[in-house]
């Protein structure tokens, strides 16, 4: 396993990050702005800044094919940024929400995106050709609290959302004229807009921090504030799921998770390190941390002289300086994303967190 690639951008929390398809451009949400970094050899150089939001930016996502960037913020707005000769050109999106937007993700088809919000609804946004304008349709029905996370099914119709009411839900966001009729899947066959294809609660009904569909879309995983991950295998429309596996861990809660293959999930959060989970419909288990324990430069305590030891004890009341965590990230990891995919699944992931670091991990 190769050592992780660490880029310390600044000493400030990163709310969200996204790489362009060629992985040369990195967008990070910092305060009210989005900073665009360009890879320059082994480093990332600040290239551009997208300004326009007037409250904290909570989500940023780069569409892999079109290169358009969508951002959302606590100022209740979302913008779609398109490259033009004069720089990035923002288009305001009509979200029609009266609370902060919390997260945003492009659908794989890139014709739509979904925004989570504190207004207990999910605007699903698409481009209205006639009006030259991004408009939204609201997913509303059973949501009782703030949406904290959204994730798309590969068919771009099904949308998973996690909420602070403790539920992870799967909705249909089918929009006539934008989407092709989806193929039948275990989640259901007929899928008009706002069909609730699944509603899941974990044991403690804690806040949901992250949801994700498996690569095939036939399973859903979510992480809650009760330090657990839950994997749901649906059985078909109007039927109880064939398996719901909930795994409580000894660790602090996970903030985000990605499927690296059908049988492996990477999750990271308040423990400041990423963990591997492996399993199938029969059961899941934790399979250790991504941190390599023998990493040079951190845990090697230099041979200290007795004089030095007592001097330190006298000066600081302790012998070793323990202000650094033993993990690569020095604070909570808030976002992890797939960075590189090979034939068998995700081979590299990128993570960002409260410590302002971007780390690229080889799985």
């Amino acid at each position, binding site marked *: 396993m190769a050592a992780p690639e660490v880029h310390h951008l600044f000493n400030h929390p990163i709310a969200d990050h996204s790489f362009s398809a060629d992985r040369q451009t990195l967008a990070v949400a910092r305060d009210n702005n989005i900073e665009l970094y360009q890879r320059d050899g082994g480093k990332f150089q600040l290239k551009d800044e997208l300004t326009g939001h007037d409250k904290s930016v909570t989500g940023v996502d780069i569409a892999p094919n079109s290169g358009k960037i969508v951002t959302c913020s606590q100022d209740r707005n979302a913008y779609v940024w398109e490259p033009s000769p004069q720089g990035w050109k923002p288009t305001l999106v009509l979200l029609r929400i009266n609370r902060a937007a919390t997260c945003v993700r492009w659908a794989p088809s890139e014709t739509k995106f979904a925004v989570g919000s504190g207004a207990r609804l999910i605007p699903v946004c698409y481009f209205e050709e006639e009006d030259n304008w991004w408009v939204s349709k609201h997913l509303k029905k059973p949501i009782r609290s703030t949406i904290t996370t959204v994730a798309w099914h590969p068919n771009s119709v099904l949308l998973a959302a996690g909420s602070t009411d403790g539920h992870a839900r799967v909705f249909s966001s089918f929009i006539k004229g934008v989407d092709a009729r989806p193929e039948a899947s275990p989640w259901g066959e007929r899928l008009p807009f706002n069909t609730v294809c699944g509603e899941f609660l974990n044991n403690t009904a804690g806040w949901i921090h992250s949801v994700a569909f498996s690569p095939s879309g036939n399973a859903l995983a979510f992480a809650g504030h*009760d330090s657990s991950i839950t994997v749901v295998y649906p059985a078909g429309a109007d039927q109880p799921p064939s398996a719901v596996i909930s795994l409580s861990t*000894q660790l602090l809660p996970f903030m985000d998770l990605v499927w690296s293959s059908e049988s492996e999930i990477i999750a990271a959060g308040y423990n400041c390190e990423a963990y591997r989970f492996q399993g199938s419909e029969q059961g899941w288990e934790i399979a250790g941390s991504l941190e390599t324990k023998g990493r040079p430069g951190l845990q090697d305590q230099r041979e200290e002289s007795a004089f030095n030891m007592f001097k330190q004890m006298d000066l600081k009341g302790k012998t070793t300086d323990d202000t650094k965590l033993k993990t690569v990230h020095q604070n909570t990891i808030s976002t992890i994303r797939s960075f590189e995919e090979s034939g068998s699944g995700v081979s590299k992931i990128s993570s960002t967190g409260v410590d302002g670091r971007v780390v690229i991990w080889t799985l």
Partner: protein
Amino acid sequence: MATLNWRTINIDALDPESPANFDLSTLTPAVAPVSTADVQALAGQIRQLLRGGDSEGALQGALENPPYGADERGKDVHLATIIEILQSIRQADMSPMLGRLYKAPGGTEALDVLMKYIYKGMAHTSAPSTATKITPQPTGFSQVHSSRSGEGGGQAMSVLLSWHEKLVEIAGPGCIVRVMTDRRTV
């Protein structure tokens, strides 16, 4: 109209979309209601196990059946039962017993329940020790009794603290987070 203080109007009550008008019980996991009599019957069975010397079985039985759906009185009865079990187990036996409970099926759940009771016990250590009906020798004067119960509160706290320490060693900080997160209270 002039007398109406508009700052005190509860605007949430007028807004049908407001979350204040939700029935919040729909958000919590469903819990079956349990009557206080059932809790007391269970407590009796558990005490019997305890008297028979099977403190591990008693603890397991108590943790597997937390009365989430009971009223305050029923919950207090169960708390007193669990505190009694915890106090009867020697310090050296704590870690191995917790280890076995953790490995048993549904073990994390049982240890989460134990953590809930440890925190609840800490919240009113003095209350259960005065409320417990275990006064085997009805000899104490009221004065003596009250001073002894004060002492008992401190002792109960030290027992709970050592259980807490052993429990975190085995179930990790995740256990504490789950207690804070869980909407099913004991």
